[in-house]
């Protein structure tokens, strides 16, 4: 990509091709001989990390599309089937869903690095602007991807984001109708979002090619911000940069794997495990964490159109950065004031992200407005002003000088900065959790679960007892649509044999047909059948239960959560605490009180529950002591029932959890060993360069 190469392959067959298509020369000049500044630090490995993430997202995305059904009635179910039935489907889905977050995490570091070291300055303006375009495309892709599982957050996220365009004067409504393909968000919307979500990553890949092309024309910036002058200032891309990037990638993979295998739902929203319901908006609409700063800016402006304009301007302003900051010195290392303002700006962005996850009320609104002003002031006032008043420190004469000057004590700083970024990042991402506040419900007490933590396993006895409780009590009103009888014999489940599962199934009457006469008939259940629902349809379920259909329980343990609060959610990241759902379900089952506390009344047809948001729950107290008898002598108490049925429901919600944690441990072991090997290999290779 940096002009013609004098590289000639020695193999005659390759020579033959090279004469007709000089592709080996192109690869050699771009990725082997390409001179790269020798003083690049690890922040520069994020380019390689991002390339890897884009490739991985495309790969897992293409695979998921093989199993996904883009239809409003089937999308949610097809995603569940991917996770439950497809071989390694849970792994691929976690990789793709967490991968989106990791992609944004890496791109934010990449962007802040560019900001700090002035990588947008002459002659790299086009390179920078192409990056902003990639970022915009990523946001569009990420948003449309989030719509595809067609859960509550998908649906309402789609509604809210498409409605941004209704702020456009005169044409707003028409644009929104055009985006929807209907009078509201519906099947046509889902279909086109799927199509575009499949298309855009390839567009991104195309712009990435331009981005790299521009990079290879201008050459890489570097921490010193001075251009390479002699050969002493650079090293060839391969092996030096390649091996360093590979080490960076392997470290990043460890971080990524933490989410895939241990915290797959940490970055998601429990509400998205509830199928899309056009009639009910979740209490708190929160976008994915990577949009939160912009969401906060949107909400800070009291005027609809102005808010939308401000939000988009916050991104578009990046395109003008090369001209807003006209300082000669590139790297903030040599700009004492710019360096301080940069870190203030980072904090502003993180705080905006935190505010975006909070309910828009009281102090949050005021803080949001102040920080929005700070955000824009950084670009429009601080940077132009600094360029005029700041006296930069002298920059080194050459990159070689820079390398000699700082060969001491660099690793320690890099490590501490990396740690700070990880903590800051987890603060930001954890902020999402805070928004899921429950008005008027006490926080459930944290329970101890056999399945928590990195080595957690389901307690077989508890699963079997829980199944009994579900069958004898819950199943009178609640369906369990995504669980099949065969699952009872799956590894990592209640531990029944195939024959036991078949016998269990045969106790059920399953409606089948039509037969040769065109009539429906009933037959004994088979292992391939799913637990039959207690009511033929939602209307019947609602009619029989005081007007509100009892929810399906398949995903209940993942579809409920509660506010963990700061700083608890930060610790949760390290302790792998993922059991808000089970805590909540357990608490609800035990939270019924015959008499509401003094001064509290609940409407007719509802019951007082200590832990239910708003306290008035439609479900009457389902469990009482002695209701279910256990064969294994476990106590017949509500506490025991609640614990067992919750364990069972957690398994129903995530039947492959044991496989996830087991494979996770293997992957972790491998990645840590690999990263250590990479580190020493990198050191050996670089030993030659010094």
């Amino acid at each position, binding site marked *: 990509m940096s002009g013609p190469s004098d590289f000639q392959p020695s193999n005659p067959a390759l020579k033959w091709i090279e004469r007709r298509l000089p592709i080996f020369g192109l690869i050699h000049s771009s990725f082997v001989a390409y001179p790269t500044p020798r003083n690049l630090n690890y922040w520069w490995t994020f380019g390689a990390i991002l390339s890897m993430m884009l490739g991985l997202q495309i790969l897992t995305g293409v695979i998921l599309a093989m199993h996904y059904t883009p239809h409003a009635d089937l999308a949610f179910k097809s995603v569940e089937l991917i996770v439950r039935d497809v071989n390694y489907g849970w792994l691929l889905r976690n990789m793709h869903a967490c991968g989106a977050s990791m992609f944004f995490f890496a791109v934010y570091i990449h962007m802040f690095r560019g900001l700090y070291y002035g990588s947008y300055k002459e002659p790299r303006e086009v390179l920078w602007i192409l990056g902003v375009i990639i970022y915009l495309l990523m946001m569009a892709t990420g948003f449309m991807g989030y719509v595809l599982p067609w859960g509550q957050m998908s649906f309402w996220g789609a509604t809210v984001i498409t409605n941004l365009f209704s702020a456009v004067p005169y044409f707003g409504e028409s644009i929104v109708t055009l985006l929807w393909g209907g009078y509201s968000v519906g099947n046509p919307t889902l279909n086109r979002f799927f199509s575009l979500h499949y298309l855009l990553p390839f567009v991104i890949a195309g712009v990435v090619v331009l981005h790299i092309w521009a990079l290879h024309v201008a050459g890489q910036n570097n921490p010193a911000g001075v251009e390479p002058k002699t050969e002493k200032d650079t090293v060839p891309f391969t092996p030096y940069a390649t091996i360093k990037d590979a080490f960076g990638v392997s470290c990043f993979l460890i971080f990524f794997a933490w989410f895939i295998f241990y915290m797959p739902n940490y970055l998601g929203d429990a509400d998205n495990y509830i199928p899309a319901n056009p009639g009910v908006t979740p209490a708190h609409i929160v976008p994915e964490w990577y949009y939160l700063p912009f969401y906060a800016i949107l909400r800070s402006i009291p005027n609809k159109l102005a808010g939308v304009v401000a939000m988009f301007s916050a991104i578009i302003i990046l395109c003008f950065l090369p001209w807003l900051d006209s300082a000669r010195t590139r790297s903030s290392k040599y700009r004492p004031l710019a360096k301080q303002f940069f870190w203030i700006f980072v904090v502003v962005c993180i705080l905006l992200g935190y505010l975006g996850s909070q309910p828009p009320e009281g102090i949050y609104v005021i803080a949001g407005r102040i920080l929005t002003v700070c955000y824009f002031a950084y670009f429009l006032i601080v940077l132009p002003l600094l360029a005029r008043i700041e006296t930069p420190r002298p920059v080194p004469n050459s990159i070689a000088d820079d390398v000699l000057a700082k060969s001491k004590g660099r690793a320690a700083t890099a490590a501490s900065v990396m740690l700070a970024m990880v903590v800051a990042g987890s603060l930001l991402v954890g902020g999402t959790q805070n928004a899921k506040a429950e008005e008027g419900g006490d926080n459930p007490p944290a329970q101890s679960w056999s399945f928590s933590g990195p080595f957690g396993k389901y307690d077989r006895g508890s699963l079997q007892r829980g199944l009994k409780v579900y069958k004898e009590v819950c199943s009178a009103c609640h369906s369990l649509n995504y669980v099949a009888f065969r699952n009872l014999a799956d590894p990592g489940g209640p531990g029944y044999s195939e024959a036991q599962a078949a016998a269990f199934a045969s106790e059920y009457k399953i409606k089948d047909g039509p037969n040769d006469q065109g009539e429906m008939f009933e037959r004994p259940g088979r292992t391939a059948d799913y637990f039959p629902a207690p009511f033929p349809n939602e209307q019947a379920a609602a009619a029989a239960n005081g007007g509100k259909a009892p929810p399906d329980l398949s995903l209940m343990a993942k579809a409920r959560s509660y506010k963990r609060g700061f700083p608890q959610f930060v610790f949760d990241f390290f302790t792998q605490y993922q059991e808000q759902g089970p805590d909540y379900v357990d608490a609800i089952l035990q939270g019924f009180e015959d008499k509401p506390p003094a001064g509290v009344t609940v409407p007719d047809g509802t019951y007082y529950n200590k832990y239910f948001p708003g306290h008035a729950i439609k479900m009457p107290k389902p469990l009482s002591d002695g209701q279910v008898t256990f064969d294994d002598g476990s106590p017949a108490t509500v506490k025991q029932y609640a614990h067992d049925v919750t364990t069972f429901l957690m398994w129903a919600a995530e039947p492959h959890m044991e496989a996830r944690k087991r494979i996770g441990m293997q992957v972790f072991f*491998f990645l840590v060993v*690999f990263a250590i*090997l990479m580190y020493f290999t990198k050191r050996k290779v670089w030993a030659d360069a010094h």
Partner: protein
Amino acid sequence: MTTASSADHPTRRDFLFVATGAAAAVGAAATVWPLVAQMNPDAATIAAGAPIQVDLAPIAEGQDIKVFWRGKPIYISHRTKKQIQEAQSVALSSLPDPQPDSARVKAGHDQWLVVIGICTHLGCIPIAHEGNYDGFFCPCHGSQYDSSGRIRQGPAPANLAVPPYAFLSDTKIQIG
């Protein structure tokens, strides 16, 4: 990578590179595994391929029915005396894929032929009661099968496959 400084500890250095390369190869192979394995049938598809039972009582002599098992059409023919006679009397040496009729039906149930109705040429579905051999005729490329489902003429290389099945009673079979 080969410069003067590597001469000091060549073996240690080479070992490190080989170990790292080997670890990378193992990691890549382990990553590819789930990416390929996901294309195999999922658990629901496998569960749906469980054995099925078919009641033979309504099928009169000379009639046949088509049922589906694992997405494949299964022909169940109630053969006439003439068809059985023809199937048993053919000289095996004249067949492209020699197989006696007794190997293609269950002993004591000579009248029932159960075959997978997929032409062994390229997967079309042959039509029953057509062709020159009182059996099946494939409209795609003209393969002809006899009353035992054996290939007699045309491009197909092999006889129609017999699915795994067993008689539960004289009038009921289980396929699979």
